[in-house]
């Protein structure tokens, strides 16, 4: 069981790092799409900042009471690196200079973030499958141990 626990701990570290960056990517997509809309409809960046609560919660799901886990540690987690440095997509200063971003770059950044978010979600989902399998095994043994 100790080996299973060690494996789970390692997977949880990676899962946490993936989930963190996935959320950042989702947030950036939502803000950049709001900026896209702002340029089309007019409005100030100041208004966009005031509108962040709506922008950052529009797509958000929420798990039900029975599907919630004990909260994981809330840190950015381990560092993740891709050969092409795409982890910078959720760390660069694009948002800070939002109105200065040229239209075509705005669109291409949104696309790259969408692709990155899909990739992060896919990796995260696979980690969940591994973690849930290991947890299930540990849980079965605990239940058996209590019964025996």
């Amino acid at each position: 069981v100790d080996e299973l626990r060690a494996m789970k701990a390692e997977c949880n570290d990676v899962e946490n790092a993936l989930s963190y960056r996935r959320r950042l990517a989702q947030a950036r997509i939502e803000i950049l799409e709001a900026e896209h809309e702002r340029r089309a409809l007019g409005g100030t960046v100041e208004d966009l900042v005031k509108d962040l609560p709506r922008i950052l919660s529009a797509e958000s799901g929420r798990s039900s009471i029975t599907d919630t886990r004990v909260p994981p540690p809330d840190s950015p987690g381990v560092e993740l690196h891709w050969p092409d440095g795409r982890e910078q997509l959720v760390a660069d200063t694009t948002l800070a200079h939002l109105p200065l971003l040229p239209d075509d770059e705005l669109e291409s950044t949104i696309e790259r973030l969408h692709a990155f978010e899909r990739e992060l979600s896919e990796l995260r989902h696979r980690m969940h499958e591994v973690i849930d399998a290991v947890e299930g095994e540990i849980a079965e043994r605990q239940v058996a141990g209590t019964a025996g």
Partner: protein
Amino acid sequence: SAAEIAELWRDYKDGGTSHARERLILHYSPLVKFVAGRVAAGLPQNIEQSDLVSYGIFGLIDAIDKFDPGRGYKFETYAISRIKGAIIDELRSIDWVPRSVRAKARAIERAYSKLENELRRSPEDKEVATELGLTEDELATTLGQISFVGVVALDELLSAGSERGSGATVGDTIAGSGHDPVAAFESEEMRQVLADAINRMPDRERLVLTLYYYEGLTLAEIGNVLGVTESRVCQIHTKAIFQLRSRLSE
């Protein structure tokens, strides 16, 4: 790049303009989505996600104003805990649990405390129901209306022994982390205190609590492993939390 971000900070800390602050808010606002998502898990639908985000943004602005770039620690870590604290504080002050549910929870908790002291063991459902003047079915229904999952519930669990911040709580004494229930829970000392209390509980409650708090399963997954319905696992978990709280506060 790190240099560009350092420049954003310099602009604000030197000039203090709202424009410079706005740039920092935009840059770090994704942190609020991350934290709000975590705090929202398990909360009832009547609590709007956009409200959580707006409380969180206030926490972020507070963190930006207070941060000292010279200090050498990472802004993200500092901001995450301030954002979380801001959201939890606001939820506490609007008392996010309906009053009637709060009142029932208090009554049940008092019943557990009283019976534990008298019987020197965990009371059975029948005994708790009798103490409250309910049938066992009514008690089960009531337990089903109260649930303790998620970050805010963890915060309430760790404040066992204190009615709404009136005294030292388990969380305060151990972690000294003030309003960060997750950090408090993560501390070695707190996990030991909780584990000791959990180990002294009856088998089924102990299993549910161990699988939830130490193995990271959801209540639905625990239900699967134990072969009981989701609503039953919910009730067992709620009951177990009452028992745990009464032991932690003695």
